[in-house]
C-alpha cells in the first residue's frame, strides 16, 4: 500500500543504519575472510603478506586443540542453554502460580540478568574460591563435603562451574519469555483438559508446553547463538584453564590473534567459528519464521 515517494523513502530511512552496519560489520567480515587466505601477522614493521590459499584452513582443521576447543564450546552451549531452558520454564511455571510474594519474586528473578557478565564471572570466581569461597564453606557447613574442593581448578568440574555461573545469569531471560508465553495459554483449554481428567503433568506436556514452544524456541536458539561465542566469562573466571579444559573457540581465536599474533591464521579459525554460527543463525531464522507463521500470538 505504498506510493512512489514512500518507496523512495524506504531507502532514505534505511541508509544511515545500513551505512553503519556495512562499515562496522560487513567490511570487517569481508576483510577477515580475505585475511584467512593469507599469512598476515600482527606487526608494527612493514611485513610482506602472501596469499597462501587454503593452507590456514588445512592447518586449522588438522589442529586437534582447535577441535577440542570447538567441542568444548559446543558442550558449554548445549548444557548451558539446555539447563537454562529447563530451569527457565520451571521457574516460569512457578511464577505463573498464585502465591504470596509473587510480584517480589518476579522482580527478583530479573536481577541476575542485569548483573554484567564480568561482574557475574568475578562474583562466581569468588564463590568458587578454593579456600574462602562461599560454595566450599556452605557445602562443608551443610555436611555435603568433608574437604574443601578446588572447583575451577579441577578439569572435571571447572567447565560445569562456568556453566552454572552462565546459567545463573541467563535463565531469567528464558523464564521471562516463557512466563509471557504462559500467560497467553487459554485457561479454558486447561480447564477443559482437567475436566477430561488429564493429570497436571499431562496437561503441561500436551497443552502448555506445545503452546509456549514457539517463543521458547526462538529465545533458546538466540541464547544458543550467544552461548557459542562465549568469551568474557571464561577470560575472567578461568583464563581457559585448568589444562585448557575451559578454553572455548572464541578464546582460542583470541589467542591466535593477540597472543601468537597470527592474524591470517586466526582469521581462518574465526571464519570456521563464524560458519558454525551461521548455521545456527539459519536455525534461528527457521525457528523465528515458523513462530511468526504459526504464531500463537
Amino acid at each position, binding site marked *: 500500500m505504498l506510493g512512489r515517494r514512500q518507496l523512495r523513502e524506504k531507502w532514505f530511512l534505511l541508509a*544511515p543504519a545500513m551505512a553503519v552496519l556495512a562499515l562496522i560489520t560487513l567490511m570487517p567480515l569481508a576483510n577477515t575472510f580475505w585475511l584467512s587466505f593469507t599469512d598476515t601477522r600482527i606487526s608494527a614493521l612493514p611485513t610482506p603478506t602472501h596469499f597462501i590459499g587454503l593452507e590456514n584452513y588445512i592447518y586449522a582443521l588438522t589442529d586437534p586443540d582447535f577441535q577440542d576447543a570447538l567441542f568444548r564450546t559446543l558442550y558449554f552451549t548445549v548444557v548451558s542453554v539446555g539447563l537454562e531452558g529447563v530451569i527457565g520454564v520451571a521457574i516460569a511455571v512457578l511464577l505463573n502460580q498464585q502465591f504470596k510474594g509473587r510480584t517480589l519474586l518476579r522482580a527478583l528473578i530479573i536481577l541476575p540478568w542485569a548483573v554484567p557478565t564480568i561482574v557475574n564471572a568475578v562474583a562466581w570466581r569468588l564463590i568458587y574460591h578454593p579456600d574462602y569461597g562461599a560454595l566450599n564453606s556452605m557445602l562443608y557447613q551443610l555436611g555435603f563435603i568433608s574437604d574443601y574442593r578446588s572447583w575451577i581448578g579441577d578439569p572435571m568440574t571447572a567447565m560445569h562451574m562456568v556453566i552454572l555461573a552462565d546459567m545463573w545469569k541467563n535463565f531469567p531471560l528464558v523464564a521471562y519469555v516463557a512466563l509471557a508465553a504462559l500467560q497467553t495459554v487459554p485457561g479454558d483449554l486447561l480447564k477443559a483438559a482437567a475436566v477430561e481428567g488429564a493429570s497436571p503433568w499431562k496437561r503441561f506436556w500436551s497443552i502448555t508446553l506445545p503452546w509456549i514452544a514457539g517463543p521458547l524456541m526462538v529465545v533458546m536458539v538466540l541464547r544458543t547463538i550467544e552461548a557459542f561465542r562465549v568469551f*568474557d566469562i571464561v577470560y575472567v573466571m578461568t583464563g581457559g584453564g585448568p589444562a585448557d579444559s575451559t578454553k572455548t573457540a572464541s578464546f582460542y581465536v583470541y589467542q591466535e590473534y593477540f597472543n601468537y599474533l597470527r592474524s591470517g591464521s586466526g582469521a581462518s579459525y574465526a571464519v570456521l567459528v563464524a560458519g558454525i554460527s551461521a548455521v545456527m543463525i539459519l536455525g534461528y531464522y527457521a525457528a523465528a519464521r515458523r513462530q511468526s507463521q504459526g504464531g500463537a500470538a
Partner: protein
Amino acid sequence: MRRSLLQSVLLYACVVLVALFTAGPLLWLVTMSISAPTDLTEVPLRWIPSEVDFSRYQTLLDLNDGSGERFLSALRNSILTAGGATLLALLLAVPAAYSFSRRNASMVLLFAFLATIMMPPITYILPLYSTFSSLGMLNKTLTLIVVYTAMLLPFATWLMKSNIDVLPIEVEQAAFMEGASTAYTIREVVLPLALPAIAATAMLSFLVAWDEFFYALIFTNDLSAKTLPVAIADFSAGRVTDYGVIATVGVMATLPPAILAICFQKFIVSGLVAGSVKG
C-alpha cells in the same frame, strides 16, 4: 483451584528455593562488600559480618584514591559509551525500523541486519582493530560508541519494528492525508506513540552496551577510555588481597543496570515479548 496443604508446602518450598538460588549470590556479593577483610578469609566462612564496613564504597567514590580514580573513570567511560551508543543506535534504528514496518523494506534485509550481530565478535575484531589502529582511533570512547552502535543497531531496529508494527497505521495515514511529511509524521505522531517501546529499546540497548567486554578489552588501554567491565577484570586479577574490594566494585557496577531492570521490568517483558515472542 484450591491447593491441598501438601501442594502449598511444596509450592512455597519451591518459591524459597528459587529465591535463594536467585538472590543468594547477589546477597553474598553485597555481604562481602561490607564485611571486614578478616571475615572474608575465615575457614569456614563467617556469613554474617562481624561489623558493617562501608569504607570500600567511600574509597571507590574517592577520585583521589587510586582504585577510586580507576573505578570512577571507568564508570564515566561506561556511562558515556553505553549512553552514547544507545542514543546513536536509536537515532538510526527508528527510521530503519519505520522503513521495515511501514515501507515494506525487505524482511530478508532485516534478517541480514540481525545476522551481523549474531556472528561472533571474534570475526570482526581484527579488521576493526587494524582500521581503527590506522586511523589512530584506538583507546577512544568515540570508537567504542561507534562499534557499540553497530552492535546495538540490529537488535534495536528489530525491537522498534515489532513495536511499530502494532501501532495503528491509520493514525499515520491520517497524518499523510493531512499533508504531513514522513519526517513530520515520525516526529509528531509515531514517536509519541512509540515512547514506551523506545524506552524499552533504549534500556535493553543500554544494558547490552554496559555489559560489553570483548571490544572494550581490545580497543581501550587506559583510564581515558577503559569501561567498567575491563576495569573490573583488571581489578579482580590484580594484586587485591581484600576480596571485599572486588565485591564492592561488582556491586557498584551492577547497581545501574539492576535499577534500570527493576524500574523498567514491565518494559523488559513487553520488549522481550515483542522481540522474541513475535518473530
